[in-house]
C-alpha cells in the first residue's frame, strides 16, 4: 500500500490515497469465502459423487441424471414457467396499479400501503395462510366462489394448476414492489409531456400509450429483471404451500436442490445449483441486454 500508482489524480507519488483499497478487505473476506468460493467450487462438486467427506469424480453423470429423470426435468420446466408467469403478471398488474394509484382517486396513499404491505410479510406465513384459504372444499376462496355459483378447482391439489396457484400467491405478495417501482417511474415523468399530449388531443389511453409507457421504461426494465430472477430462484413459497407436490407437479429447481440435499445426494444437489446458475445467466442476461438495447434505440 505504500507505493500508490502515480497515475491517480489528486495525488503526489508519495502520498497515500485517502480512499484506501483495504476498505474492501472485510467484505472481500466474507463475500469471497462464503459466497464466491462455494459458487466456484460447486462446478467441481457437481461433477462428483459426494458424501461431504469424500468426493469421487464421475464426470457429467449428475447432469445426465438431471436431464434424464422426468421429475427433475419437470422441475426445470416449472422454474422457467414460474419465472415467466410471475414476472409477466407483476409487470402488467404493477403498471396498471401504478397508473391507478397516481391518478386522482380517493385514499391513494392508504391504497398504496395496502398493496405494498404483503412485500414485507413473511413468505412462510403468507404461504400457510393461502394454503388454508385454497383448501379445495373448506377454503375461503372456494366457499366464496360457491356463493357465486362457481365450483372452484382444487387449487393446490390439482397437478395441472398447483404451480399456477403458487405463482398467483407469489404475484399477490410481490406486485406491491413492482407497483412502487412503477409509481416512482411515473412520478418522475415531467408533467409538461402530458400537457403537450392533451393539447394535441390525446385522451387517457393515448397518453398512457405514447407518454407513460415509453417514459416509464427504466422502471419496466427493473421490474421485469428483478421479478424474473426472483421467480427463477423461488423456493420458500413453493415449500410452504405444496413442497413441490402433488407428486412433482410444482417442483422447481430450488426445491429439487433442497430435496436432493435432504436425501444425501450432495453431488446431484450441487449439479442442480449449477444448472440454476446457468439458467439465470442464460435467460436473465440476454433479457437484460435486449431490454437495454431497445432503450438506446428509442
Amino acid at each position, binding site marked *: 500500500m505504500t507505493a500508490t500508482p502515480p497515475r491517480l489524480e489528486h495525488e503526489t507519488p508519495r502520498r497515500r490515497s485517502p480512499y484506501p*483499497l483495504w476498505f474492501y478487505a*472485510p467484505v472481500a473476506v466474507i463475500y469471497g469465502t462464503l459466497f464466491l468460493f462455494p459458487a466456484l467450487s460447486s462446478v467441481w462438486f457437481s461433477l462428483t459423487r459426494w458424501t*461431504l467427506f469424500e468426493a469421487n469424480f464421475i464426470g457429467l453423470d449428475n447432469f445426465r441424471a438431471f436431464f434424464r429423470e422426468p421429475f427433475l426435468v419437470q422441475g426445470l420446466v416449472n422454474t422457467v414457467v414460474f419465472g415467466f408467469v410471475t414476472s409477466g403478471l407483476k409487470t402488467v398488474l404493477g403498471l396498471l396499479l401504478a397508473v391507478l394509484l397516481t391518478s386522482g382517486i380517493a385514499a391513494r396513499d392508504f*391504497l398504496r400501503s395496502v398493496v405494498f404491505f404483503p412485500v414485507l410479510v*413473511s413468505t412462510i*406465513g403468507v404461504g400457510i395462510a393461502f394454503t388454508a384459504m385454497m383448501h379445495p372444499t373448506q377454503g375461503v376462496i372456494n366457499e366464496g366462489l360457491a356463493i357465486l355459483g362457481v365450483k372452484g378447482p382444487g387449487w393446490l391439489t390439482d397437478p395441472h394448476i398447483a404451480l399456477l396457484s403458487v405463482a398467483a400467491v407469489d404475484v399477490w405478495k410481490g406486485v406491491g414492489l413492482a407497483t412502487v417501482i412503477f409509481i416512482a417511474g411515473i412520478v418522475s415523468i415531467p408533467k409538461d409531456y402530458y400537457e403537450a399530449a392533451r393539447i394535441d388531443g390525446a385522451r387517457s389511453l393515448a397518453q398512457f400509450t405514447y407518454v407513460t409507457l415509453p417514459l416509464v421504461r427504466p422502471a419496466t426494465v427493473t421490474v421485469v429483471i428483478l421479478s424474473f430472477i426472483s421467480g427463477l430462484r423461488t423456493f420458500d413459497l413453493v415449500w410452504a404451500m405444496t413442497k413441490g407436490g402433488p407428486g412433482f407437479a410444482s417442483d422447481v429447481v430450488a426445491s429439487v436442490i433442497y430435496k436432493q440435499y435432504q436425501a444425501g445426494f450432495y453431488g446431484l444437489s450441487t449439479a442442480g445449483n449449477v444448472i*440454476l446458475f446457468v439458467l439465470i445467466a442464460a435467460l436473465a442476461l440476454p433479457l437484460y441486454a435486449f431490454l437495454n438495447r431497445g432503450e438506446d434505440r428509442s
Partner: protein
Amino acid sequence: MTRRRRPLLSLASIAVFATVFLVPFLFIALTAAKTRAEANRLDFSWPTSFALWDNLVAVVSARNGMLLTAYLNSTIITVASVALLVVFGSMVGYVRQRRKSRWNGLVDFLVLAGLMMPPAVVPTIWLLQQIGLFATLPGMVFIQVAYNVSFCVVLTRAFVATVPRELDEAAIIDGAKPLDLFFRVILPLMKQVTVTNIVVQSVAIFNDFVNPLYYLPGNANVTVQLTLYNFQSQYTTQYNLLFTNILLVTIPPLVVFLFFNRQIVAGMTAGAVKG
C-alpha cells in the same frame, strides 16, 4: 394525472383492493382469535368466542418456549448482521464511488453476481463445517452479510455520489486520516441512506427462511421463520395456534412499516428510475 376525483372508480378500487389485499390478513387475525374447533372449519367468519389470549399462551409456551428462543435468535442474527452490513458495505460503496482503480470492474461484476446469483448451498455447508461455523449463530450472521452486501453497496454507492468531494478535500487538508475521513465525516452524512439500509435489510433478514433452513439446523438455533415452518407440520389440526403464530410473525414487519414506510419504499425503488 387528472385532478378531478372520480368517485365511482375510487369506490370500486377501494372495494377490490380491500377484498384482494386485506381479506387474507383479516382471515389470519380472525382465525387466530378462534377456538380450535371453530378455527379448523377454515371459515371467514367472526369468532363466536374470543380465544386469542389462550392461543397466544399456548403458542408461546409450546415446546418449552421455543418461540421465545426463536425471537431471541432472530433478533441477534438481524442486529449483528445489519450492523456489519452497514459498516462494511458502506466502506465498499464509498471507496468504489470515490476512487478510480483497476479493481472497479471486478467489484462491479461481483456486486452484480451477488444480486443475481443464488448461493451454492451444499458447498457452503461443507465449507462452514470445515471452518466450524456450521449451525452456529456467528456463521449465520456472516452468511447474511455475504448474501446481502451487494444490495448494500449499490445503495450506498449511489448515495455517496451525492456527497460533495469538497468535504473530503477540506477534511484531508485539516489532516484527516482515511479512517477519520470515513467514520467522522462521510458516514455521519450518510444517515439517510443508512436508515433505509437498516430498515430494508432488517426486514429481509428477519423474514429469511431458506438460509436458516440450510445453515442453522437444530432446536437451539431455531429462528422465527423456522418455528413457523415447524409448527406447520405440528399443528395440522390446530389452525388457531398456527395462525396465532403467523399473526405474531407478521407484527414486527407491520410495526417497521408503520414507522419507516418512506425509507422502505425509497430503498426498494432505488435505482429503478435512473435506468
